[in-house]
């Protein structure tokens, strides 16, 4: 479950592995601070979400380095996980571009919308569980998911 949450944020197996490891180590170290107000899984999800958001939040320096790499044309291609493709290579090329577009659209969502989407779509959690993890009401989760869907539609070319 932690791995799924992490991969939903980073879309990359190696980074998701690292984040999962980080999450469990953080949980182990702060086990004494777990008061039992929420369930253990909720507490673990919170740690995973925070670690993932921290990882995806780029520092100004790393953004500058990325821009320099892009200008030089030697930016590293991120190792994404594979998505089942058709046999037709032409279709596969188009789809690869589209896949990148979808990932970019997901990555540019505001952090709370992104968290709601990841928890609900990747982990298959109910709105109640998502609300508990995010510390908001179920209504707020529904609103976040609606806004996220609208925002995704807009980013992917809808009206």
């Amino acid at each position: 479950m932690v791995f799924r949450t992490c991969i939903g944020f980073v879309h990359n197996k190696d980074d998701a592995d690292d984040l999962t490891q980080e999450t469990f180590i953080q949980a182990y170290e702060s086990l004494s601070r777990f008061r039992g107000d929420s369930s253990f899984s909720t507490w673990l999800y919170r740690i995973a979400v925070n670690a993932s958001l921290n990882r995806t939040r780029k520092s100004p320096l790393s953004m500058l380095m990325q821009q320099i790499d892009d200008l030089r044309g030697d930016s590293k291609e991120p190792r994404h996980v594979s998505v089942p493709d058709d046999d037709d290579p032409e279709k596969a090329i188009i789809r690869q571009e589209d896949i990148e577009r979808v990932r970019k659209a997901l990555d540019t969502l505001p952090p709370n919308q992104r968290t709601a989407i990841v928890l609900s779509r990747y982990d298959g959690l109910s709105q109640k569980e998502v609300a508990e993890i995010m510390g908001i009401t179920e209504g707020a989760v529904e609103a976040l998911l609606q806004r996220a869907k609208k925002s995704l539609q807009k980013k992917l070319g809808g009206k």
Partner: protein
Amino acid sequence: MNCRLCQEKMEGYRGGTLPEDIMTQVKSHLEVCSSCADLYRMMVITDRVIIGEIDTEADPFLATRVMAHIASRDEKSAQASLFSRVLRPAVITLSMAAALFTGITLGSLSQPLAGDNLIPEELALSDDSALESIEYLIND
């Protein structure tokens, strides 16, 4: 059906949860509207991306990695606690003793200069040692 309505119903259309007549309307709209068809395609791709990522397996040795990391941290913290319990007070005590010893040694190194007893002539009168002892005055 217009584009706005079609996009609202798209999710239901994909899940097959709409009434049959609406399903038909959405389908016909998608056949004639390229922008809605493109959006629907992107919606399908989004689902595929998510399913593809969900199906990704974590590193099979991840649990071993985590346990090894935790064990090495525990070892380090145990070493650190030994240092803080025993070695740190010992180091502080030894440092203080060394500082005291150095101070005493340096202090005892300084000796009065050989010519310190010589008093210049002009200061001879103000030199108490050059004055006669009060005992002589009393005896007188």
